[in-house]
């Protein structure tokens, strides 16, 4: 009986000191301790249609390219003059939000070939050079823009990128970047 009393007293003292210890060490500690003893369940949620919150302009590639145009003799073969103009070109996707609906499913399947080709986001003229019989005015016409016509250079840049074999590589890399971007929003099986 005496021993039982002793154990109870010791128990009460321990409890008191635990409480005092907790208050002493800020109440957050006590909460943390208490938190461990509360029964807890596990919850999980599978989100199917997560959407990007913002439209991003995604730059994927840059190119520095010349457009070379020739003036030929009447034989159509011999070069009389050359106009060479150099440009910097930004390539990518203008509005990722617009692409999301159409392409996110393919992206989640990791099918980058199904992605759209990137677009020319902007081009800047760097320098021009005429040699032989090629007038400056003619050479300038590539960047002349009127209210009704597009700049000739924009069309020529895409043609040139295609001809030189750069375009396929650029398009492939851009599609991969877009895939990675759209994959952020795929729902994945929960990783546990």
């Amino acid at each position, binding site marked *: 009986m005496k021993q039982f009393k002793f154990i109870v007293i*010791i128990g009460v*003292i*321990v409890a008191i*000191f*635990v409480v*005092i*210890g*907790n208050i*002493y*060490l800020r109440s957050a*500690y*006590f909460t*943390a*301790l208490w*938190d*461990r003893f509360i029964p807890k369940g596990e919850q999980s949620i599978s989100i199917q249609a*997560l959407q*990007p*919150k*913002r439209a*991003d302009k*995604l*730059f*994927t*590639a*840059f*190119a*520095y*390219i*010349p457009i*070379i145009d*020739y003036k030929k003799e009447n034989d159509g073969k*011999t*070069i*009389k003059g*050359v106009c*060479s103009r*150099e440009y*910097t070109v930004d390539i990518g996707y203008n509005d990722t939000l617009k692409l999301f609906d159409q392409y996110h499913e393919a992206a989640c399947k990791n099918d980058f070939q199904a992605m759209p080709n990137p677009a020319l986001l902007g081009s800047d003229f760097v320098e021009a*050079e005429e*040699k*032989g019989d090629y007038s400056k005015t003619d050479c300038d016409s590539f960047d002349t823009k009127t209210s009704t016509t597009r700049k000739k250079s924009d069309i020529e840049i895409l043609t*040139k990128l295609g*001809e*030189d*074999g*750069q375009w396929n*590589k*650029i398009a492939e*890399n*851009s599609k*991969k*970047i877009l895939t*990675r*971007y759209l*994959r*952020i*929003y795929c729902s*994945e099986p929960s*990783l546990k």
Partner: protein
Amino acid sequence: MKWINIFALLNVSVLFVLGCQFQTPDTQEKPIEQEILAKIRQDNTEIANLEASYSINYVNFYQSKNLIRMNGKKYFYIRNDVATVFYGYPLKDADIKVVTENNQRLLRVKLSQPKQVGGMSRYIVPNENNDPNYVPLDEKGEKADVEKYIKERLDKTIKMYEEKRIESTREMSQIYFQNIADRFGLKLQLEFISAGEK
């Protein structure tokens, strides 16, 4: 004797509480951090991968002159070289953590300076020439070192645009991590560490 025991018990209880306290704040962030890291690793081999393609055009023109006809035959040598480099970060160089600050969960990403990833690939694009036997001449009338000229121009151009490309690479990473943060309901805190700081 009894009082010594009570002091010992006080110590034990304090240590016990401290021990419990030790692991709690971090453990909540771990699963989401692991999930984000797994996602990034699954989809990427490196962070950002900007392709920069440089096409350098070389035009060499020479017109022969003689006493009878002032303008003689025109000679052209035109060459177009394409070089491609990639900019990005190796995945291991990105320090990605989920932390709580002022009751807000943050995706804290530290990235070092973007680097050129992999080597440079280079090739020559076929072009038109008037006379396949024409030996290109320089301004002094000597045989031009076309190779050296093009290489210098190429290196100069790549260097000239490098800062802007690094900027675009950062922008690309910014967009990527912003979307990762959006997706997991976190606030993004992206920091670019300059080379010396690390």
